[in-house]
């Protein structure tokens, strides 16, 4: 039985290679082209959908949370014992660097010098962060997001950088429920009120980004923040941690937790810190991608079915002759299966080369400019391999069925072309 199967495989492969080698180059090229398109449909459509969100996730990681974010518990304004925790974190060999941030809600006011008494004050609410500009820049590259004016220097007292969506000229749609400052640009003076303390500061730079945490907030140097809140205990609200290349965020998160830090702080990887809706959107887009991909898979299967059916029906006479001279029907069926596998694998190989050799690096270098993220093409090799497997499997079935339908017909009827 096994030797029969091996023999059929040998003969099937022999027949398939000859048919492919001597088939019309145009026909073979066209079938492979359809397979390439199907592969791209399977991988790229879902990859772009997921990449659209993944781009946002990556940007939040790169520009705000970094690899791990340690933050105050929900019921606290700051992390107790922050200086000790920071010292401990700095001793971890996996940690490249970190940035400690103070944070508090603040009220901003502009145009207060020119405002008449009857005018409504031009105010906006924002989260204000006190940072060490150099540490923050090493961790989140904040300076690269400052596109107007300039970034903070350590001694920049009474100066802030401000997110674009706190300034009305950058808000795309006017919303009566969303307050932004009017007539504020680089060099403008604004008032910042933190608790009971109000200070006049100069806008040194404007942050433009697709990360909400940057575009709706204000940053000042940490020494001024401390003086405004009147607290010198060094307890910060957040610590963004950049890991060394190759370090696993989950493993480091667990290590920090084991040190006991999770008793007075929330320790999250960049993925943990994603809002739930974002995780849900990724799941939904994945499902959508799979649905689109499935349609592509069905189309590819039908294409292969038609190709093999036409091929087998036009060769029905020769199939009859082969059976007549004693070639096993199983070997003939396998010859069509091998041809289908060839088309699917060849199409997938070209698709893989296109995806990993061109599309992924190209889109990574030239992200798709979506309003809320720089979309990338997400094509993890495991998932792509699975899709190649699915494509091959569906084409095997699609190739086998028509071959079986034709080969099972009466041998003599096939030879003589009788129905």
């Amino acid at each position, binding site marked *: 039985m096994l030797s029969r199967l091996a*023999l059929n495989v040998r*003969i099937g492969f022999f027949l398939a290679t*000859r048919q492919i080698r001597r088939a019309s180059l145009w026909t073979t090229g066209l079938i492979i082209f359809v397979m390439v398109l199907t592969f791209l449909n399977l991988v790229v459509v879902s990859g772009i959908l997921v990449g659209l969100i993944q781009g946002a996730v990556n940007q939040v990681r790169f520009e705000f949370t970094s690899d791990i974010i340690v933050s105050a518990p929900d019921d606290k304004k700051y992390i107790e014992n922050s200086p000790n925790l920071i010292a401990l974190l700095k001793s971890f060999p996996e940690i490249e660097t970190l940035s400690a941030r103070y944070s508090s809600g603040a009220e901003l006011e502009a145009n207060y010098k020119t405002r008449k008494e009857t005018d409504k004050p031009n105010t906006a609410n924002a989260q204000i962060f006190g940072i060490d500009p150099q540490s923050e820049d090493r961790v989140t590259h904040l300076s690269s997001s400052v596109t107007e004016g300039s970034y903070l220097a350590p001694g920049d007292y009474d100066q802030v950088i401000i997110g674009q969506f706190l300034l009305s000229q950058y808000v795309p749609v006017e919303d009566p429920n969303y307050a932004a400052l009017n007539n504020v640009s680089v060099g403008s003076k604004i008032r910042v009120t933190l608790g009971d303390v109000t200070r006049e500061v100069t806008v040194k730079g404007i942050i433009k980004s697709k990360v909400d945490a940057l575009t709706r907030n204000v940053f000042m140097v940490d020494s001024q923040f401390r003086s405004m809140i009147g607290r010198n205990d060094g307890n910060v609200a957040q610590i963004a941690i950049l890991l060394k290349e190759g370090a696993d965020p989950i493993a480091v998160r667990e290590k920090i937790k084991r040190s006991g830090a999770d008793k007075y702080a929330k320790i999250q990887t960049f993925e943990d810190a994603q809002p739930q809706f974002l995780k849900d959107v990724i799941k939904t887009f994945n499902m959508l991608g799979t649905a689109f991909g499935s349609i592509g898979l069905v189309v590819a299967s039908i294409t292969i079915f038609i190709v093999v059916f036409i091929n087998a029906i036009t060769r029905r006479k020769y199939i009859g002759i082969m059976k007549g001279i004693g*070639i096993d*029907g199983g070997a003939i069926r396998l010859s069509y299966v091998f041809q289908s596998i060839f088309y699917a694998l060849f199409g997938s190989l070209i698709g893989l080369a296109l995806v990993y050799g061109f599309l992924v690096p190209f889109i990574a270098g030239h992200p798709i400019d979506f309003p809320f993220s720089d979309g990338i093409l997400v094509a993890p090799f495991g998932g792509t391999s699975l899709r190649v497997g699915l494509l091959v499997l569906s084409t095997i079935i699609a190739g086998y069925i028509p071959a079986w339908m034709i080969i099972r017909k009466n041998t003599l009827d096939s*030879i003589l072309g009788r129905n």
Partner: protein
Amino acid sequence: MIETKQLVKTFLDGETETKVLKGIDFKVEDGEFISIMGRSGAGKSTFLYQMSLLDEPTSGEVIIYGRDTHTMKVEEKIPFRLTMFGYVFQDYALLPDLTALENVALPLLMQNIPSDKAYARAEESLTKLELQHRLHKLPSHMSGGEQQRVSIARAVVHHPKVLFADEPTANLDNESSQVIMQIFRDLHKEGQTIIMITHEEQYAKVAQKTVVIDDGTIVSVTSNN
């Protein structure tokens, strides 16, 4: 040895039943060369297909070397045909994607003979039929006579017990037909059992016996010696 007993073949076309073979009793001994003649529609091809196991009779028996083929399953008949029989068809029936050498080697490969031996035997068979210069040609690049010689090489490469030929010269010019008939003569001299259908009386006479079929029955058996 092939023996048929009360061989009947009926075709159904809707409600109409056509009896093509009407109970043929016939015997072919080892090493015999039989030619079958008859007008179109007489039933000679149908008779050949029953004897060569390409078709199943409606009733009656086909006994091949003592084995009643009526009880054989389709899966058994395929390897039986592969090892016991060789076929030459009117239109050559070569596989268009295979070269002459590959066409001839195919039945050997299907018998699980190693590739190098299969190709060597195929080349030997083709050389014997003076086709050594056409080994790697596709059928579409060969003349009708050459294709028929490749077809004969394929039919005899595995030394079958019986060679069936269905009008092997029907599509050939006179010169090519003479060549083919000479090949049949030579094969017969080597002891090959041959059953051949032909329309040409001159070629029928090459065989030892000529069987004439008409209206589904054997009307005469003539010795040509």
